[in-house]
């Protein structure tokens, strides 16, 4: 099949628009479906797909930052401290990406997709009850408060070293696969550090762009970032996620979330299958 640049660009733009829109609306992130969309749907080499996806991840994160800041939940100290872990991890992941075969990357990618889909079915743990003060978190001045219905709700952060270690892993996956790894970041903050979920979600978004920027430099210098691919995908994902975030404001979309999770799981299985058979 031969398609021309104009059709290809238009199709990619619409695909990215839809991915960004659904990602923002369901809270599952659009970045995670960009690589399968390009690699499986458009037969793009997975290295170009990863470079393109990474760029769209930065666009989504930075584009939605202003909206998140207005909510006033994110903790910039925790975010900045954990970014040491995620950026170092991202550099490691970007270096690994050129040393691991593309079929192995496809299999790892498929597993991450399955994990993201599975995680979306579980309800998020609620840590509304405040944790006991943690010494390291106190030294690092990580404890804070966020606005609740009856005034400020204080919170304390626990298990900082475990959270930090998980963040190195999240960064490595981000650099290896060109995704935001929002699911792993939120897991580290929710489960390990026991942060309130409102704070962990917004802080995670704060961190995704910086993490992605850490591997973007390496990707650029390796020639993974193709302008003709990145142009429609970045513009589409940005438009889609900004629209999705606007629609989301008051809407709850559990049915759509389940459908999107099933799509992600199916893409995961297909990535693993193609990785094992060596067609990616």
């Amino acid at each position, binding site marked *: 099949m031969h398609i021309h640049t104009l059709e290809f660009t238009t199709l990619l733009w619409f695909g990215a628009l839809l991915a960004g829109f659904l990602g923002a609306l369901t809270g599952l992130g659009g970045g995670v479906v960009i690589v399968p969309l390009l690699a499986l749907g458009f037969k793009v080499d997975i290295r170009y797909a990863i470079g393109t996806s990474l760029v769209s991840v930065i666009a989504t994160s930075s584009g939605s930052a202003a909206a998140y800041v207005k909510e006033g939940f994110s903790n*910039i100290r925790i975010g900045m401290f954990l970014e040491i872990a995620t950026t170092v991890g991202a550099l490691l992941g970007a270096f690994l990406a050129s040393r691991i075969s593309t079929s192995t990357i496809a299999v790892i990618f498929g597993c991450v997709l399955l994990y993201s889909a599975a995680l979306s079915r579980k309800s998020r743990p609620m840590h509304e009850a405040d944790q006991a003060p943690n010494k390291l978190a106190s030294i690092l001045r990580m404890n804070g408060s966020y606005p609740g219905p009856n005034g400020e709700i204080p919170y304390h952060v626990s298990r900082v070293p475990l959270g930090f270690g998980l963040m190195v892993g999240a960064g490595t996956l981000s650099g290896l696969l060109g995704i935001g790894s929002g699911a792993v970041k939120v897991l580290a903050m929710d489960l390990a550090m026991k942060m309130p979920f409102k704070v962990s979600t917004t802080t995670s978004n704060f961190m995704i762009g*910086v993490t992605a920027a850490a591997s973007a430099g390496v990707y650029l210098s390796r020639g993974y970032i193709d302008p003709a691919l990145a142009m429609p995908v970045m513009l589409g994902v940005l438009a889609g996620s900004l629209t999705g975030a606007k629609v989301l404001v008051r809407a709850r979309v559990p049915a759509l979330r389940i459908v999107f999770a099933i799509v992600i799981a199916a893409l995961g299985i297909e990535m693993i299958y193609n990785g094992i058979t060596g067609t990616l």
Partner: protein
Amino acid sequence: MIKAPFSDDQLESVMGNLLRIGVLLAAAVVAAGGIFYLVQHHSEPVDYSHFQSEPAPLKNIPGIIHETAALHSTGIIQLGLLLLIATPILRVLCAVFGFGLERDFLYTIVSLIVLAVLFYSLFGHAM
């Protein structure tokens, strides 16, 4: 305790707006380069199934600036993408100064470490 002349909330607000402006600017440059690109290449066949890396001038900052100055569409798109990559870096830079103004030296250093990793990624390995 001496009250810091600058608060976390102000810092976040400045950073949020900075990011939005940066992203919109990057998107505008990418779109301009994209229109230019489509006008020139709209009917060419597409094949990305084999990875062959980008041409050298599109892989580093001086090359991209040179390509943009020569008004090559791919160079302009790449410049927009560079602006996009720069937005989170600018956010960290802003945090360095913000924490400095808050007289929070621990977090000024934390932000500087993150900034150093980002600079290393972008400038650290001429290949």
